[in-house]
């Protein structure tokens, strides 16, 4: 097990390097650079564009820029923003908690709803309850979450007088309002994730409920409840966890929109701005953090298989 984790971690290094390289090339292929944007916005700037490019290192040959970038990265240095010269690491450190909390809460809320509902739908297969739950999940899959978010803001204010708070409150200032502030976007952006988790849970549970060992457990006279929750669900969860792992990327991407709608100062808004400003180090840094998170989650997902199904051993 330990060796397996080590091997997976060592395989992750080339992946992260490849991500870093792709990002490096991709952001520089975007037409225009920071200096163009600065001069577009502030044409009264006295210095010359070329001087500024020279200072920011944008005139260096691509290979030199790449070498600097990779060497800095190896030392854990993400560089400084081209636009406001703030170290990217500080910028990320102040905003990452918002995005990670949002993504985490989105996934937790989604699973907290999806798993029980999926179990209920499976055990009540082909009853009106099952059809109802499946229809709702199908509808939630189709409603774009930014539309749902917009409607919640509209009807929240009309019906309940609730409007999204303009300022962001940290957990340390006021845990309860922080929780509420994140719960509503998490519910909205978790709805479609919950829908696909629920459908997967239902299908997989139905399949395991038909298997021989479940029939054996039933005929032993165990309680139905125990058979479903202790014997069947454990096996049915494997594919559901795969789906949840895949959804991490979606949840992180979704924060870009959620932060826009609900005024949250996270990495998503930073990214959208950095794309506009052609701020290469910021784009590279934020995306690299996303990539490392996703690669890490994939590893955890693979390891959790062994926990849920002891037949799976990693060497």
């Amino acid at each position, binding site marked *: 097990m330990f060796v397996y984790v080590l091997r997976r971690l060592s395989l992750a290094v080339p992946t992260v390097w490849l991500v870093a390289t792709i990002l490096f090339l991709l952001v520089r292929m975007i037409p225009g650079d920071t200096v163009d944007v600065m001069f577009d916005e502030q044409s009264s700037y006295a210095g010359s564009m070329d001087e500024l490019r020279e200072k920011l290192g944008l005139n260096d040959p691509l290979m030199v820029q790449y070498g600097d970038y990779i060497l800095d990265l190896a030392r854990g240095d993400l560089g400084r923003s081209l636009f406001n010269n703030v170290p990217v690491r500080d910028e990320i450190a102040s905003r990452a908690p918002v995005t990670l909390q949002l993504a985490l809460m989105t996934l937790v809320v989604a699973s907290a709803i999806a798993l029980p509902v999926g179990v209920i739908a499976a055990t009540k297969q082909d009853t009106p309850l099952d059809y109802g739950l499946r229809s709702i999940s199908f509808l939630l899959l189709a409603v*774009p979450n930014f*539309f749902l978010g*917009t409607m919640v803001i509209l009807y929240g204010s009309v019906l309940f007088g609730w409007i999204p708070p303009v300022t962001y409150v940290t957990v340390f200032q006021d845990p309860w309002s922080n929780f509420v502030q994140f719960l509503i976007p998490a519910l909205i952006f978790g709805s479609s994730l919950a829908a696909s988790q629920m459908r997967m849970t239902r299908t*997989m549970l139905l399949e395991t409920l038909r298997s021989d060992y479940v029939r054996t457990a039933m005929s032993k006279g165990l309680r139905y409840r125990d058979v479903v929750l202790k014997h069947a669900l454990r096996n049915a969860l494997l594919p559901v966890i795969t789906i949840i792992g895949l959804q991490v990327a979606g949840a992180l991407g979704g924060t870009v*929109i959620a932060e826009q709608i609900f005024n949250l100062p996270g990495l998503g808004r930073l990214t959208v701005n950095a794309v*506009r400003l052609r701020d290469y180090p910021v784009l590279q840094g934020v995306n690299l953090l996303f990539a490392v998170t996703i690669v890490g989650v994939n590893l955890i997902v693979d390891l959790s298989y062994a926990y849920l199904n002891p037949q799976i051993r990693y060497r």
Partner: protein
Amino acid sequence: MGRFIRRKPLGAASALVLLGLMLWSAAAPLFGASDPLMIDGRAALQSPSLDHVFGTDNLGRDVYSRVAYGGRVSLTVGFGAVAISLALATAIGVSSAYIGGWYDAILQRIVDAIMALPGLVLLLMLVALFGGGLWQVMFGIGLLAAFGASRVLRSSALSVSTSDYILAAHALGARDSWIMFRHILPNLIGPMMVIATLGLGSAVLAEASLSFLGFGVPEPHPSWGNMISGYGRQYLYQAPWMAIAPGIALTLAVFAFNALGDAVRDAIDPRMRGT
């Protein structure tokens, strides 16, 4: 076909709804849509009435017409992106599976790296790279969807290329391109159809999300995504119909695409029923 309609009424109904939506937006003027760009200051922010069934927006433009024309953008991007992603995914997947070796290893590591990034963020950068027009957005979405789809097609192609008749074709001296096109490709029609129909809904959603963030088809041209964001959000309280009408159209289209995709997958791959 007849059996599909009988076995999958929801899928067949969805196909009908989609055909209706396509016809409606393609032939919008025949269905009473006027010029979606025509500004009429005196008619601004009118609530739905007989003249303007979905009301008017802040510039007095008819929301019904804008939803109808906006459908062209959403549906064109949806179908175009899926066609592009299918072509690219087949090229990547089949060649990767058939050629194997270093080519496969390197290509798959690149796919790994790209799949380690959140799709929407990557899409933002791609659209910044290509520019924000209809075709560029379509290409960006198609390119991005191709990587995930190529995985599925690669594994299908792998299982086909180990079969005996491929070996027999080799023994007969068939060229590699012949084997790929004539022997492997026809076996991938099933997964390709599933990818295509399920991909349509997400492509339409991706376009709308991009427009919502201001990276899609730019104003004044209507798309369902930019109608919900932009002015739609600015005038949300005074004129909610500006955002609600395109939102319902979008939801209806994605719902129909998903239902059709599910039905197609059930018909082709009954093991995955209901997921």
